[in-house]
């Protein structure tokens, strides 16, 4: 049975697209058939983060309007043959993304893949609503910062009332992915701690992704961080999160990139 996952947050710039790419690639690295779907009409970025921007021909709206078949719009990853991308439209009107159209596309993707990862746009409007509507599982991406936590709380409320599962009276599985975490600042009392955020949002924790320059480096070259730097701290954190998503029990840690002082002084290349 395919699983439809929405990666959502309310607030923009917290790491949804980064996480969709990293988790999607990590699932594919585990042999799963994966499609990552960009729902950010007009502000598509997942193609860029995946390094597929020059191969986009058709997008989801072309499929919905019957101008292209789904198989024509899907882009196969150059590194992993079981990883695909369905791009968002960069030019069309947002209203062209109809809810019937989205329902049809998601149903078709369920047939072809084990995992359908939907990268939500920011906000709590129609776009975010469409991205979450068919989800079985929601990954709520949150930064340890007041406005992000507040917006995540709003999104959790929406997940519990506006999704297809909620409307059928079923439960939607929700997970917290805490990103851009800095354990040193949290320990110093200058950043909300993992426990604080968990306490406030009270949904189970999927993973803690540390703040790391490897994320920017990976985006520079258009490769999900789990592929570009698989032993880096954020990649290990994403790989652990994926193991939890697949039902394994994995100790919760905050992986660290810390190199010794000597290594830092001599010749560690900058991002």
């Amino acid at each position, binding site marked *: 049975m395919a699983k439809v996952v929405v990666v959502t947050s309310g607030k923009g710039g917290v790491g949804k697209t980064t996480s969709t790419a990293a988790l999607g690639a990590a699932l594919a690295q585990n042999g799963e058939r994966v499609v990552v779907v960009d729902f950010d009409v007009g502000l598509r970025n997942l193609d860029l983060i995946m390094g597929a921007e020059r191969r986009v021909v058709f997008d989801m709206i072309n499929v919905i309007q019957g101008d292209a078949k789904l198989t024509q719009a899907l882009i196969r990853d150059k590194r992993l043959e079981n990883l695909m991308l369905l791009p968002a439209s960069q030019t069309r009107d947002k209203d062209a993304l109809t809810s019937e159209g989205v329902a049809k596309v998601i149903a078709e993707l369920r047939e072809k893949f084990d995992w359908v990862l939907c990268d939500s746009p920011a906000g709590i409007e129609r776009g975010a609503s469409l991205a979450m509507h068919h989800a079985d599982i929601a990954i709520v991406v949150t930064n340890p*910062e*007041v406005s992000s*936590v*507040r917006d995540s*709380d*709003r999104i959790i*409320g929406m997940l519990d*009332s506006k999704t297809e599962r909620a409307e059928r009276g079923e439960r939607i599985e929700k997970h917290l992915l805490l990103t851009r975490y800095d354990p040193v600042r*949290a320990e*110093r*009392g*200058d*950043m*909300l*701690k993992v426990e*604080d955020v968990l*306490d*406030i949002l009270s949904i189970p924790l999927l993973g803690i992704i540390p703040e790391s320059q490897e994320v920017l480096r990976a985006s520079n070259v258009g490769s999900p961080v789990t592929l570009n730097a698989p032993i880096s701290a954020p990649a290990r954190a994403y790989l652990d999160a994926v193991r939890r998503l697949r039902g394994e029990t994995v100790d919760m840690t905050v992986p660290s990139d810390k190199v010794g002082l000597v290594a830092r002084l001599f010749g560690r290349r900058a991002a």
Partner: protein
Amino acid sequence: MSGIFDLFKRRPTANVARERLQILLSHERASVGQEGLVATLREEILAVIAKHIPVDRDQVQVKLERSGESSILEIDVTMPPVRVRAVA
């Protein structure tokens, strides 16, 4: 960056963030819950009225207003003129 002395003087702020969030979200969760309540009340009131009088959906307004300790539920229905038939 601030110097080492500033670092000693500076108070941790995360606990303030935590408390502010807890207070704010307990309010916001309650008011979002009330939005749901108003929507439910509106639908059910509409259904009751529609059984007896033909009214447009947008002619029925339901508002819940908080005033101090209590709340006021306001129901506003614009109806077509009611004809009272004379009983023979």
